[in-house]
């Protein structure tokens, strides 16, 4: 049993990559969902399996309502993706060490070739952002031509989740290194942030106080979801600003 005073709060700990999501300017257009699926080879499960709750998304738009019908009022849309927790609940439960913490990038990794599909991590994730490949879903021609070659195409029986577009992180780091410089803030961003027409999603280094994401993160009314669980999430949400 963990006592409340033992739970670390995110102000004490800093990650490396982080995100700020402004729910007030999010229109719920789902462009980020589509862009994420394109970038990360996320498969389309179809109508039948979606009905069984097996739909696969690395980012989803959550909608909530206030009040009783017919007097309902929609609260701001809430894009939900892997929070890349600094103290993740998914990591210690994996029996195969397939979901591990990256020491160099401070991200939660999912190593597909190690995953044996126990689905323990997904059951232990308080944000419900992990998705499991229940089948090898069919991709009719010409859809296979749009696979992103930088990202693994996952097989049946493997868990997957948002990686903060680690392939873009590596690409930017590789490019910066070949030019003998550091990665500049805003040089690259994740697929969801890039696709967002309202710029509701901002991605960058939260350990660099000069970066845009750190500047936005300094506003007072930011919320880190389920912070009280001690997961140290790296995504800050704003609404009602």
């Amino acid at each position: 049993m963990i006592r409340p005073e033992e739970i670390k709060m995110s102000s004490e700990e800093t990650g490396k990559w982080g995100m700020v999501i402004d729910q007030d300017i999010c229109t719920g257009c789902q462009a980020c969902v589509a862009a994420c699926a394109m970038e990360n080879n996320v498969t389309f499960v179809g109508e039948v399996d979606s009905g069984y709750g097996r739909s696969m998304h690395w980012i989803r738009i959550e909608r909530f309502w206030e009040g009783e019908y017919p007097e309902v009022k929609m609260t701001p849309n809430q894009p939900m993706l892997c929070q890349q927790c600094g103290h993740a609940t998914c990591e210690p439960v994996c029996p195969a060490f397939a979901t591990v913490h990256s020491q160099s990038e401070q991200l939660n990794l999912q190593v597909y070739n190690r995953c044996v599909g126990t689905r323990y991590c997904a059951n232990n994730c308080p944000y419900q952002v992990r998705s499991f490949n229940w089948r090898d879903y069919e991709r009719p021609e010409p859809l296979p031509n749009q696979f992103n070659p930088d990202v693994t195409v996952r097989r049946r029986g493997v868990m997957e989740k948002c990686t903060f577009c680690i392939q873009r992180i590596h690409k930017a780091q590789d490019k910066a290194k070949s030019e003998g410089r550091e990665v500049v803030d805003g040089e690259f961003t994740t697929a969801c942030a890039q696709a967002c027409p309202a710029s509701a999603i901002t991605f960058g280094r939260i350990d660099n106080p000069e970066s845009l994401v750190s500047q936005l993160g300094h506003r007072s009314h930011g919320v880190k979801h389920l912070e009280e669980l001690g997961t140290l999430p790296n995504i800050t949400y704003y609404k009602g600003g």
Partner: protein
Amino acid sequence: MIKRLFDWLIQPLGLIAVSIAVLALFSLAAYGINTTQQPPAQPIQFPHRTHIAFGVQCLYCHPGAARGPAAGIPSQSKCWGCHQQIAKTNDPKSELRFLKAAVESGTPIQWIPVAQVPDFVQFNHRAHIAAGKNCEDCHGDMTNLTLAENPQVFNMGWCLACHVKNAGDDHAKLVKLTDCGTCHY
């Protein structure tokens, strides 16, 4: 039932049947393992050693290795850049007749990649060249080879052994080079 089967198996005919079955299984397995160790058949018996003997650098035909993730297999127009000026290209008996036919008909040569890693491994040539590795460190000495062959199986233990060795005492480098997310995503 099982007793009767056992009695039949220990008589001479049964023993011969068992030995044949074991031998057949063993040879099938040996054949299967052997086929995985053979370099694939290529459309043209490309002589690496001849080109290296003429002083052509690896990066002349595989320039992607210095720039990005994939080293690349040269297109036939790159071959043709030199070969259209070489008299032997017109020799109808040489292997070069396939190159000439491909250039004239405009159909690409279907080379079979030899040095491959699985889909879940993200390999970047540029970083390795920049770190001072030479092509032959991983791909072996091509000066005596005709078709490309793999000198060793590219497995994770082999990658990591080199990563750990190169990181040395630099802890930050060791963390980066042994991080799962460096190669698997």
